Structure formats: C-alpha cells, structure tokens
C-alpha cells in the first residue's frame, strides 16, 4: 500500500515491446549423441533483420530448419508465424519447371502467374521468366529463389547462406537487393551467414552461434550507410567469438599470425 502511495507514476506501463514473431525457449536438437542445438533461446521482433553468424558445423542450418519447421516437430517451446519462406544456399529451383512456375510453386488461385511475374520483376529477373532454371547463372538462380520466397509475403524470411557461392560483385548487388526488398516488405528476416562483413552491413542485430548456443549478441544501432565508424571494433569482437583473434590486424597480416 505504502509503495503505491510513494511512486504512483511507476504504475503507468512502458509501451509494450511488440510481440516477437519468433520465440524459441530452451530448444535443443541432437542427432544421435551429437547435440547440435543446446537449449537455445531466440526471439525475433516483427520486421527485424537478424544475422546469424557461426562457423561451419555450428548448427546454423539446423536452427534454420527448425525455424522453417522442416524437421519433424518435437515437444519444444517454439513459436513461429504462420507464413514463412526460405531461401537456401543452393537455389533449389525445380529444374523441370520454368522460372516463373518455380516462383508460383504452391500458390493457389488464378493470379499465381501475375504474382510470380511481379515478384520476378521486383528482383530484376523479368527477362528470364520463361527460362529453364539450369540455364540461369548463380546470381540469377538466387534472384529467382528470393522471388519465390517473396511472392508469399512471408512474416518470416529465412536465408541460409544465400550468397556464399556468388562472386564478390554479384554478392554486393544481392546484398543491396535483399536490403531493398526487406525495407519494402518488412518481413522479420534471419540471414544465416559466415561472412562477418555481410552481417554487419545488413543486420539490425548480429548473433553468433557456437556449438549450438548463442554465444554473442550485438545490436547495430547506427543506421546502414553510417556504420563505418563502428565496424572495426565490432568486426574484431565478432571474429573473436568465431575463434579468430584479429587484434586490429588487417587480414593480409593475419595468416602469418595463425600459421
């Protein structure tokens, strides 16, 4: 009673943070004796751009498959939005369907084709809509895969190292594309990557996964385009969590030190 009298202002609640679209609580996953996800906790807010860093084999894909509900469900505390879409590292277009049919895969209704064409237009692939997937370049195939995910207007967009196999220039163009699409459609987005620069350039928040646990979490408050000042320190921090001690050295000088 006395407390309420002493500070009545505290009763006014803060504006509620938005309900997360993704929430994992103590989620574990093991293949036989190997524990791949180890009581992992993760929330993603609506419209948030999260990058997930991790060494090869750290469990990134397993986490992403969990978020895509691709593995048989287990008794775990997982909340996922109804509409999700995934872009895989290898574009995984069905080779026997033309590009637009791949984008329209699983869409219902008569407007499937116009919707697919609009999505392809948006990713800059309007001139290849009738092509066979095996004739696409790596970058074009990933554009088609992004269109296929986008056309579903997902609340949660999952990208599993989608740019790892692309050359540097194509990768830059794809980064710009993904950023533009995310800003226009605002899905919650989880980008799995092992590229620290990519994570820092694109995400609102960077997570580091190691042996099935999230071992680091960094928020990037500076807006994209003016992050130059913070990335140097952040890069060193993230790389340290990935097991590489840079200590401010340039990559060119690093190999000698780790030899």
């Amino acid at each position, binding site marked *: 009673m006395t407390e309420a009298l002493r500070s009545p202002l505290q009763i006014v609640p803060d504006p509620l943070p938005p309900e997360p679209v993704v929430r994992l609580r103590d989620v574990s996953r093991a293949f036989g004796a190997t524990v791949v996800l180890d009581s992992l906790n993760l929330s993603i807010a609506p419209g948030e751009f999260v990058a997930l860093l991790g060494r090869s084999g750290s469990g990134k894909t397993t986490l992403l498959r969990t978020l*895509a509900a*691709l593995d048989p469900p287990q008794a775990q505390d997982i909340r996922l939005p109804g509409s*999700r*879409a*995934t872009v*895989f590292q*290898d574009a*995984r277009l*069905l*080779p*026997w*369907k033309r590009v637009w049919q791949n984008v329209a*895969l*699983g869409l219902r209704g008569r407007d499937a084709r116009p919707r697919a064409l609009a999505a392809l237009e948006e990713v800059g692939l309007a001139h290849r809509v009738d092509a*066979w*997937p*095996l*004739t696409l370049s790596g970058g074009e195939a990933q554009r088609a895969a992004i269109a*296929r995910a986008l056309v*579903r207007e997902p609340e949660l967009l999952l990208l599993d190292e989608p740019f790892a196999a692309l050359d540097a220039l194509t990768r830059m163009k794809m980064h710009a594309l993904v950023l533009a699409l995310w800003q226009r459609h605002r899905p919650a987005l989880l980008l799995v990557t092992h590229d620290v620069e990519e994570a820092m350039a694109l995400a609102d928040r960077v997570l580091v996964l190691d042996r099935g646990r999230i071992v680091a979490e960094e928020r990037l408050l500076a807006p994209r385009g003016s992050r130059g000042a913070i990335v140097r320190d952040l890069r060193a921090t993230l790389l340290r969590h990935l097991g590489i001690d840079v200590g401010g050295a340039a990559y060119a000088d690093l190999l000698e030190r780790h030899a």
Partner: protein
Amino acid sequence: MPLPTHARSTLRRDPLQSRWLSPLLLLLVWEGLCRLGVIPAHTLAAPSSVGSTLAQMIGSGDLPINLAVSLRRAILGLIIGATVGVALALAAGLARRGDAWIDPLVQVKRTIPVVALTPLFIIWFGIGETTKIALIAFAAMLPVYINLHAGIRGVDVRLMDAARSFGLGRAALIREVVLPGALPALLTGLRYALSISVLMLVFAEQINASAGLGYLINNARDAMRTDIIVVCLLVYALLGLTGDALVRAIETRTLAWCPALVEA
C-alpha cells in the same frame, strides 16, 4: 597441333573418313563373293537378291501381314509389361509398405531368367498368342520397374525439402517433384524394355508360330531361303531402331529442361 577428329572432318571432308564406307564395302564384298559363287545362296543370299525378295514380299503382302502380327505381340507385351512395371514401381517407390511388399518379390523374379519360364507359360497359356505376349510383358516389366523405382528413390531430398517449405502437401510433392524428377529414369527403363521386348519377340516366335516374322523365318529355314531370313532379320533390326527413335523423341519433348538438351 592436331585437331580432334570431328573438328578436322568439318574443315576438309575426307571421303575415306565417311562412316558409310565400311558397311558399303562389306556389302560390295558380300555381293561379289555371292556372284563369284564363293558363297552359295543356301549359305547366305546376295544383298541384291535380299533386296528383290524384300520388294516381292512387300508386294505380295506377306511381309506387311506377318509384321503386323509380330508388332501386335511386341506392342501388347510392352504396354502390359510397362504398365505393370510403372504401377509396381509407384507403389514401391512412394510407400514404405509398398516397398516392403513388392521389392522382395521383384528381386526374386529378377533372379529367374524369363526365358526359363517358357515351359510353365506354355502349360498355363498354351502355345498361342497369350504365352508370347506374356513372355514379352514379363521381360519388359523389369527394366521399367527397376529404373523408375531407383528414379523415385533418387529424387533430390533437397528439392523435396524446398518444395515442402513452400507448403506443398504429399500429393503435390509427388506430382510436382517426385514424378518429374523420376521421368528421365522411367524413359531409360522404357528404352531397355523396348529392346528387351524385341529380343523376347524373336525368342517367343521361335516357339511355335502360325503367323509373324518368326513364322516366316521358320518356313524359310525349312526351305533354305536365306534371302527371306535376312529380310526378317533386317525387319527385326528396324523394329529396335524405330522403338529407340520413338523413346528419343519422347525424351526431347519431355526433358527439354535437362542440361544436355538445354545446351544443345
């Protein structure tokens, strides 16, 4: 630096490199030897007499009528065999229980040469058309089953995953991913089935036939007419080639997306 042979031949057409040359030469030598009497007609008829016999057999209707009988056997046997093979492969490839039930039986069947079943078939079906068609069907079923089954099992799980992640149900997955993915394997199986059914046709027609190419051959043998025998052999070869061309045509139509064809 020497060019690869195919590149060189387009630069400067060398008549001695023509692929027609050696078969042509063989025909000439064969004809010459027959004319000189080195090869008597009852051993092997000359190409020219084979040609005239062919024209005459077409004209008299002997060849068309008996060819129709043989074709009917081969086509019916192939259709029945391929249909059963496809049905079994689908049942075994798409359902675990189907696999557990069907695959062992097919593997058992695989160990028995179809030709060895002839006596049983004759006891069951007599020496008429049924036995011949059954033998062809039984032999044609196996390559269709084995290839399609492997094709269904070999469909890329990563594509299945992707399609599932876009909300495709089981029926849609089978329709959009499994069957198109297994189609190349099915066509390979069909191609084998075709050549096997021609093979089985030849064999089955030796049993006892009152019509068909085998009947013509048997009569020719008794009359020592090697020209007729060679004509029939040519027709058998033509059957195989036509079937192969047919499957190839289906392949180019339905597998337009395949890398080899896409690049062409």
